[in-house]
């Protein structure tokens, strides 16, 4: 690679005194001093949340109100700051509309003091059960308050349209599949 | 197991044909099915005890072969071929005719207890398709009309009894 010597223009005397530049700078800042302000005044004005925004991670339910998470713990595994903690549990066979997937989370905690909003949990979720949604402001008075438990996560997450209909598919398969 | 004495003697005789007792499993099952008409649930254990096997070994054989029946069947067993030649020449219709005639469904005993209709794999007479086997008797070129005729014949025979 050739070395290109850049010819530096020698500074004039005035430039070496800094003074014209300082005057120019003062002029610029003065213009801004009287220019209209560009601040978004937050609590009153709310920012428009762009599509794909990564806010607080939440758990979502399918359109029939069933939890989608099967507690595979991949999000717990992938979470870089180890903010997610899941206790897996079995879905009892007597829950007719859910029994086709045997596993669900018994407890699902996300420590929002640890969460870095990276979105890897959403990306890794094979069931599309965890989403980083629009909420961006979390606060609390104690550390314990900053841990989102399962019911809170579902409350935040709500229900999202589901293109996969996992439970229904499982149920259909069980009813109409190639049984003996 | 309530087997006829001649079946029991045949069984004892058959076992001696094989170098290992295990090999007699299939002949034994055939003999029992001939005798009882099907293989009742305790067959596995009875045969296993007879051949010094575990019951699961016999159960595996029973469930593997479709010719072994685990449920009772009617007095006559109608087997309609469903393989290619027969299917092309109306095997399905033939089968449906039998079902209608005896008010039954595939694999079930008809309400009068007379027949069981089965849709089975190739009966090895593709040139005269569709073919039907009633008990051990082969009937060739059984179209709907002939099926009706065969049914009537069976019904008549049943009436006579």
């Amino acid at each position, binding site marked *: 690679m050739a070395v290109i010597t850049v010819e530096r223009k020698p500074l004039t005397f005035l430039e070496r005194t800094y003074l014209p530049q300082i005057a120019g700078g003062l002029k610029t800042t003065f213009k801004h001093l009287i220019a209209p302000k560009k601040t978004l005044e937050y609590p009153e004005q709310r920012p428009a949340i762009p599509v794909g925004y990564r806010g607080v991670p939440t758990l979502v339910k399918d359109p029939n109100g069933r939890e989608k998470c099967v507690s595979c713990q991949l999000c717990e595994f992938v979470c870089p700051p180890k903010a997610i903690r899941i206790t897996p549990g079995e879905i009892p066979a007597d829950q007719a509309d859910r029994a086709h997937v045997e596993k669900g989370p018994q407890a699902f905690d996300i420590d929002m003091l640890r969460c870095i909003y990276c979105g890897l949990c959403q990306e890794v979720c094979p069931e599309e059960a965890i989403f980083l949604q629009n909420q961006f402001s979390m606060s609390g008075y104690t550390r314990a308050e900053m841990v989102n438990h399962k019911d809170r996560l579902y409350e935040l997450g709500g229900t999202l349209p589901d293109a996969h209909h996992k439970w229904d598919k499982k149920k259909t398969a069980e009813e109409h599949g190639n049984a003996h | 197991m309530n087997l006829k004495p001649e079946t029991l003697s045949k069984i004892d005789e058959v076992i001696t044909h094989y170098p290992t007792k295990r090999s007699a499993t299939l002949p034994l099952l055939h003999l029992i099915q001939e005798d009882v008409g099907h293989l009742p649930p305790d067959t596995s254990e009875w045969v296993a005890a007879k051949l010094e096997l575990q*019951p*699961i070994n016999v159960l595996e054989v029973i469930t593997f072969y479709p010719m072994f029946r685990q449920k009772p069947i009617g007095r006559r067993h109608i087997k309609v071929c469903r393989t290619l030649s027969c299917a092309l020449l109306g095997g399905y219709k033939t089968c449906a005719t039998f079902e209608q005639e005896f008010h039954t469904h595939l694999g079930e005993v008809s309400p009068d207890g007379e027949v069981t209709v089965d849709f089975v794999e190739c009966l090895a007479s593709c040139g005269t398709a569709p073919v039907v086997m009633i008990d051990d008797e082969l009937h060739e070129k059984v179209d709907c009309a002939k099926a009706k005729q065969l049914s009537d014949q069976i019904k008549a025979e049943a009436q006579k009894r």
Partner: protein
Amino acid sequence: MIAPAKPDLVTVNIDGQEIAVPKGTNVIEAARLVNVDVPHYCYHPKLSVVGNCRMCLIEMGMPAVDPATKAPIMDPATGKQKINWIPRPQIGCGTNVSPGLHVKTISPMVKDAREGVMEFLLINHPLDCPICDQAGECKLQEQATGYGRGYSRFVEQKNVKPKRTQLGPRVTLDDERCILCSRCIRFSKEIAKDDVLGFVDRGSYSTLTCYPGKKLENNYSLNTVDICPVGALTSTDFRFKMRVWFLKQTNVIDTESSVGANTVVWSREGTIYRITPRRNDEVNDTWLADSARVLYKAVKAADRLAATETIEALVARAAALFKSTPGAIAIVGSARSTVEEQFFTRHLATALKASAHLVSRVGQGDKLLISADRNPNVRGALVTGLIKTLPAQQLTDLAAQIDAGKIKAVVAINEDLAAAGLTAAQLAKVSIVYLGAHANATSAAAKVVFPTLTVFEKSGTFVNQQFRIQKTLKAVPAAAGATDDLVVLAQLVAAAGGAALPAELGSLWKVIAAEVPALATMTFANLPETGLVLDATPYAALPFVEGETLHYKPAQPAVAAATA
């Protein structure tokens, strides 16, 4: 499995590498010797070969010879002998080596074959990895990354089979995941000798079933879960508890009996989730009894002891007790302690000029992995010199001495004196210093109680029935309020006026090597994973109670029945 080099070696060529392997080795094992992995599902080195999964297909060929002259036919292009490749792939598990055999495990044909097999295996597979406990150690998952298609061409309905069958009290079956490899059936038949599993129906309807009315409930049923290459058989105890990739594996020794089966303890953040066998072809092959897999529950048991005082305060009280009863102290050591603890126990006995007793436990051996002697380390006590003769099941001697008033204090280490035959009155007559992990009659009666650790919380060694010294490692941190037995014993020895002993295993083994002739050349760190067999001849005359088990034949007829 390959036996150590025998004279009749056969030279084979695997992917261009020449290797000499014993006659009778199959291609999978031969390939393993040259670090070539041949994927397989149904083949298991300890079970018979059935060749029904078809995953281990390889290409093979033999050097060409002229049929008439038997002269080798040379390939002019390479200048080597021409190879006649068989045009169709062969299964590696069912193919034994023969001289000059050539094998290709990486060729377009092999790859095609594997991809085809994978596609068939996955046709009816439910693909529910997110909820499957096998995920992470599933051969199907592993091979799917290498040979899977990535999408399905199967547009028909999948087969539906029972999802949660209880095969037995400890094993749950998900039939949809089963790939019909029959490993579990072969294990039940060949190893456990409890032939209750089988396939019923045929074709794609084939289903693994337990014979109606029977259950898979032998004490080795969980081995079927271990060898199941997919998630069809899962342990009911471990089911849905934790994903395996979170678990830390620690090599531990099973303390259930003197077999000393090698195990792996799987734990996460101080909680043990399961115990599985670790392959040791001299001890337990790849098997483990079900009863050994629940021992971890002792770690978090409700009756764990926890100290209310500092260890120093407890030691001071024990020392005062020792001073008040000079010459009238007995020590009840344990054949369940590690070699190191028994070594310390011997030092304590010497320092206190006390007699050392041990308690024997004898049960019924199952001729496989549970021996008659339910103490894991009787031979360790012999080797360290803690005892000279085999222990009895009841402490009748000690009881007599207590009744006679000759013994005023007893140091009980990991042994419940009440269970060993002492009455409550006898316990009340003596001052007891108790070391143990769990509460019992002795700890209740004891003057000083040192809460100590379970085997999962400490490292050490055990000497099994073969006089094989094996090391066990600390799987989880010590429970709160409990102290390492070695630390307690070292302080007690010091308090009793004995030598200063290091409680850290590295330095301790220098002391042990110096004092115990049988262990003179060993260090803890250098002890091999498979253990080291010690010289048993000095103890040949002792009437050990073990009967025959896997890889062990007693030197003399068992006397279990006589002592039981």
